[in-house]
């Protein structure tokens, strides 16, 4: 994995639900710390775009998808436990 590879994230949130807001905050903080200038975050509100949630098969909110680099990874929850999230997103390799 290239050091300069871009990380593309998509976060599905459910309006301004508390856990969704927490997830967005956690993700933003994580990216700022670990991937400065190397990340894109797309936020999809399932209440506003339910058809998209249906098409993408998103049933639990918040759900984070790592679209790039491949393979696609998904994490469900507030992303509050940093260590498993870092591992799952493959950020530990960068930190090392």
């Amino acid at each position: 994995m290239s050091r300069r590879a871009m990380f593309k994230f998509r976060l599905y949130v459910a309006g301004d639900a508390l856990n969704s807001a927490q997830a967005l905050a956690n993700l933003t903080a994580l990216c700022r710390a670990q991937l400065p200038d190397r990340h894109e975050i797309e936020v999809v509100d399932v209440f506003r775009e339910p058809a998209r949630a249906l098409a993408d098969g998103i049933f639990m909110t918040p759900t984070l998808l790592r679209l790039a680099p491949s393979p696609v990874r998904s994490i469900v929850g507030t992303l509050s436990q940093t260590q498993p999230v870092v591992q799952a997103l493959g950020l530990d390799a960068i930190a090392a």
Partner: protein
Amino acid sequence: MNPSRSSSLKSPAKAPTGIAGFDAITGGGLPCGRTTLLVGGPGSGKTVLALQFLAHGARACKEPGIFVAFEETSKRVVGNAASFGWKLTDLQRGKKLYFMDAQPLPDLIQSGDFDLGGMLAALEVKTREMGAKRIVFDALDVVLALLPDLAAERREIYRLHAWLLARELTGIITLKSGADETNSISQQPFGFMQFMVDCAVILNHSVVLGVSQRSLRVQKYRGSGFDENESAFLIGSSGFEVAVAHTLSRVDVKVSNERVSSGIARLDTMLGGGYYRGASVLITGFSGTAKTTLSGAFAEAACRRGERTMFVCFDTNSTEVVRNLSSVGIRLDRYVKNGSLRMISARAITGSAETYLVRIKALAQEHGARCVVIDPVSAWSKSGNDLSTQSVADRLIDWSKGEGTTLVCTSLLDEMSGQGEGGSQLQISALVDTWIHLNYLIQAGERNRGLSIVKSRGTTHSNQVRELILSDAGVTLADTYTAGGEVLMGTLRWEKERAERALHEAAEVAAKLKRVKLDAEEAELEVRLKSLQTELIAKQVEKALLVRTTQSDKGELSRGRTQMKELRGADAAIPGRKVGPS
């Protein structure tokens, strides 16, 4: 329990499930616009019931439905249900049914709290798009298990419930219950759901004495009466089949005064004309007392009348029954060939008594049978517990009465237990209309079959024990003789018959002889009478002659005297007579 009545009253509207027995239990179906919880162990039929509810709604009630599959993929769900013939794929294509795959990915990583907002948002779209009225969440526990704590689980359940209520969707949530013991469900984390929902149904699948038995029970139903008892059910070829003990509408079926032949002329006479159409007949007896033969005779008679008949054999293969019966002049093969008689070897059917009943009902309906023979019904008591078998027997009779089917059941009595006439094991003798008992009488080194009618409702019937004689010419009933307080059968009867015949003949001969004798005497008397009469006439003639002769003699004499006097002239005149001058 009448659906039309209950819906017009204040009770909540019902969403019919299309499962006849279940709708009867709940008085019309599940509560409309409310949530129903379906709890059951593995393989208890939760998904099937839920799917059938959706399929029926989509097809028959114009209520499109959504199936949210948490556990199995929708493809597999549809595939598994293909055998029921609900044509789910057609409904899917017609946008009457939608399957949502909501299985959590196996490699799903979870960090922190989450909720089902995404699913509900997606469902919101779909519901509006389809105009869905029914929704099923299958195996909600799968997704609940992912939630980090109990509080989150509860929160999501409430969220779901509130969402369903707000959209007035008739929902089913299925949940697994861990153990077979359904009572312990409230101890489980989501046990409180039973308190939350408006209707809860518990499915049970247990094994009793090695026989699988399914039952369901409506645990609660807010705002409506329901049958609170456990009802046996079966997953048959077209889905759920719930057995309901008594449907009230069926109790007052039209009774028939028509008589149908038992197949044995003498037995018909004993019964005052035969069985009633639509009656239930029980033939009890030990093994080998010709129960099958008697029921076979009935089947043959029914076929001869051109009535479609079904013969269910539990003990022997149906082809064997046909062959064996042909040895006593009951020819069933031609009716099997022309299709009016359907022989079923029920040994092949395995399962609970409930299974038997449902299968028999289905087969009888398929065949359009007016007469059904079950040989022997006591085979049921082998399968499963007595209690359920008893209720199955009750329902069998209930069903046959409702359909107007003439039912002949045989019941094997256990020789060892020495029940005698103590009734059948299933205790259905109290329910049946006619009870014929067959037994053996061992006498003078012979074992002979005896037939007696224990009861026959609404018909006069003979109180006599008759001997049942099987021969290649057919089945006949012979009178029995009592001698010295004992019933004579077999050779003894024959001897008695012969003796009586001899006696009768002797008496006849004696009478004839006497008659001849009397004839002779009469003839003799007549002859004598004639000769006497002739003699009498002769005597009369003689007498007449005598009288005449005497008179003429007298006249002659007097005349002669006068003449003589006149001739003599000289004789003194006869005193008192002046003849001349003195």
